């Protein structure tokens, strides 16, 4: 039963990551694009890793996946913030109402 929930969570995470990739192509400006990349990709990664932890049960494998989960939750927003900060301080202008 728990294994089936794990497989369902893995597929849901892959669906969330696919929505993030679609949002990367859907928006035509840089800052909405980086919003889709940061928020939705982090959410998809956390969902996939929790699904993997439910599949493997309580073992040493689950402990290592938990370490990867903590590292991803810390690192992914930090690197996205670093890219956005670099774009803002380099003088990237947002063009108004481009269709």
């Amino acid at each position, binding site marked *: 039963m728990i294994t089936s929930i794990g497989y369902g969570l893995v597929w849901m995470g892959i669906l969330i990551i696919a929505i993030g990739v679609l949002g990367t192509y859907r928006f035509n400006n840089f800052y909405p694009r980086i919003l889709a990349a940061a928020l939705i990709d982090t959410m998809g990664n956390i969902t996939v890793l929790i699904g993997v932890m439910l599949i493997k049960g309580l073992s040493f494998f689950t402990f*290592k996946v938990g370490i990867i989960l903590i590292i991803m939750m810390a690192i992914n927003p930090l690197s996205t913030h670093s890219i956005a900060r*670099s774009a803002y301080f380099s003088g990237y202008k947002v063009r108004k109402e481009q269709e």
Partner: protein
Amino acid sequence: MISTLVVMILLIVAVTFRVFIGPTVWDRILGLNLVTTKLIMVIVLIAVMKGQSMLLDIAIVYAMLGFIGVTFLSIYIQNRGD
């Protein structure tokens, strides 16, 4: 488990085009960051499929190296090459 791997690799190929067609240099760095995080997911899924916990060490090291690479690349561009 094979089907999840196929879907993730197709998503990586879809993101890689953002690196090629990105209008600015920050779009290209953003595409590189997305490829890195998706590749970590692929390594974790391969480790689950083979049942070896040795492959997860590679995922941890790859996550840290990708973070260092993206951060220092963006700082280098922010300082305009100093």
